[in-house]
């Protein structure tokens, strides 16, 4: 009796410790974004929305937020289109060294963002492309393309192959097969790839930091705010970033996984 109660206690404490470990930093961040005082450290003095007001009134933060959304959505769209085309080609045609090609496409996932950023930085310098949000976008395509390719490729089965064959048999040209049959059929995994890469691009820092100059994304702007010290305003903007990521994941869950479950 005692031992069963003890093991129950143990498992509960493990559960609490585990979730605490994962969520405590975020909880602290969000809590002190409401701090009625100048420092986001204990003791907690009371609740105020003042810092959120400052965040939304800060034109630099707001334009960085706009930039982040633009880069995230734009680069994810490009990564999805490229990933879909690559997956379609490799799944549907006999290509030379297709195993090697698949490996090369997925390989960037194992390379650290820092190395990718450095490589791109020297390439842009060499080619003579000046740094801007475009170069950040290109960097995010580089890191998200392998992800999009892997997700979409994994969902292309032989059953769909036969359906594509039927479309061709009924007179569809190759581009019509891709746009009217394959892409709609694979939409759940394409959307999953899209929302995941938006989330990754949204809070990516190193590439965005090294490949941007005047216009920057939100994580880079937050980093420059942090250089002037901790401040509940940084907590507030951090909470906003977190909230958007959560919202994206919820959308992913609701739209994509609901849809697949229904089928």
């Amino acid at each position, binding site marked *: 009796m005692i031992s069963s109660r003890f093991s129950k206690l143990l498992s509960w404490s493990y559960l609490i410790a585990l979730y605490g470990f994962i969520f405590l930093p975020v909880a602290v961040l969000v809590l002190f974004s409401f701090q009625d005082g100048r420092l986001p450290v204990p003791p907690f003095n009371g609740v105020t929305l003042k810092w959120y007001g400052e965040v939304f009134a800060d034109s630099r933060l707001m334009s960085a937020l706009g930039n982040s959304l633009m880069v995230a959505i734009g680069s994810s769209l490009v990564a999805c289109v490229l990933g879909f085309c690559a997956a379609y080609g490799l799944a549907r045609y006999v290509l030379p060294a297709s195993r090697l090609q698949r490996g090369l496409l997925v390989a960037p996932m194992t390379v650290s963002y820092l190395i990718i950023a450095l490589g791109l930085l020297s390439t842009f310098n060499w080619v003579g492309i000046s740094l801007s949000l475009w170069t950040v976008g290109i960097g995010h395509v580089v890191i998200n393309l392998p992800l999009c390719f892997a997700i979409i490729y994994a969902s292309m089965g032989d059953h769909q192959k036969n*359906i594509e*064959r*039927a479309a061709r*048999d*009924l*007179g569809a040209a190759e581009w019509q097969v891709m746009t009217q049959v394959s892409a*709609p059929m694979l*939409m759940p995994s394409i959307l999953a790839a899209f929302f995941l890469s938006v989330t990754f691009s949204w809070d990516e820092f190193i590439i965005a930091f090294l490949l941007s100059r005047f216009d920057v994304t939100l994580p880079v702007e937050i980093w420059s705010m942090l250089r002037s010290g901790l401040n509940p305003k940084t907590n507030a903007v951090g909470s906003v970033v977190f909230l958007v990521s959560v919202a994206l994941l919820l959308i992913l869950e609701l739209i994509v996984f609901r849809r697949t479950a229904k089928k």
Partner: protein
Amino acid sequence: MTAPVSIRNATKTFGDFTALDDVSLEIAAGEFIVLLGPSGCGKTTLLSLLGGFLSPTKGVIEIAGRDMGDVPPARRPTTTMFQDYALFPHMTLRDNVAFGLKMRNVAKRERQTKAEELLDMVGLKASAGKKPHELSGGQRQRVALARALAVEPDVLLLDEPLGALDLKLRRQMQDELKAIQKRVGTTFVHVTHDQEEAMAIADRIVVMNAGKIEDVGRPEDIYMRPRTLFSASFMGEVNFIPGTLEAAGNESISVKTVLGAVTLPNAALGDQALKPGQKITLAIRPEHFRASTGTGPRITLGKAKIEDGSFFGTHHRAHLSPLDYPNMVITAHMPQSAIIEPGAWIDLTIDPASVVILPGHPAATAQEDAA
């Protein structure tokens, strides 16, 4: 829309494997042709050559007199009904059926009207707005048929379309397929390994084996006057009695078999080129055994002992062992009212007109299959 198909000396090899070996076949416009054979006989390869999904290693395929050599599937006057239906899961039935017309740039209203007409033909008009996953197997199959017919192909290719259905539904769909084919007049080329299905729907059956055509003809001819041992045994139960051709005259034929000598009408020869002295086999279907007394011509193959029997409703099915060759097992159908007594001796009596003389002796396995 309908058109004749001409296949001349078509050969298809995959590496060392010859899937189709010098096959020639003429199909008339509006015919319902069934390619019948066991798996691996080349029937699906032949269908893929017609649809353009494979190209022949050698030989010519013409549809409506036009060489299909370099014509991709999309440009061919053929459509295919696939075994797994291959419906577009994200489209309504209406859009599925209208897809081919959309690819042909038919205006939206027109193609939707046409799609609904076809759905009406297959009895699914009320479900036009549903998605394929809401349908049963038989309904999906009907949609696949409507979709393939919507573009008014000259030739419809059906790749074992009834294979996934249960027996009752399959028989029902056979009747529907045949009725629809008669109505639209399109040339149908249908692949199956089910000989009952083939007989029920075909105008002509093409029996295939090991990449070659064994036999071509009306279901009645293939069943009752097969041209090869394979064709005879694939179409249904048959007894093979090996022997030698003794003499072939204009009127009658003398044959010596393991069950004794018999004289048969000249029409029994499956192949007129057979010469005296050649090895031959008598093919006798179980239902062709007759009572020893009665009207009409009769011949007998000696006595046989009844080993066992079972009742099948329309007949009794009995296994017999002949007196002259006790190792052989003969399967015979006897009348409903007959009394089957194991151990009793009866005469092996047949109507000579129902016997077919085929060239060659059955291989050991073929004989076992027949038994």
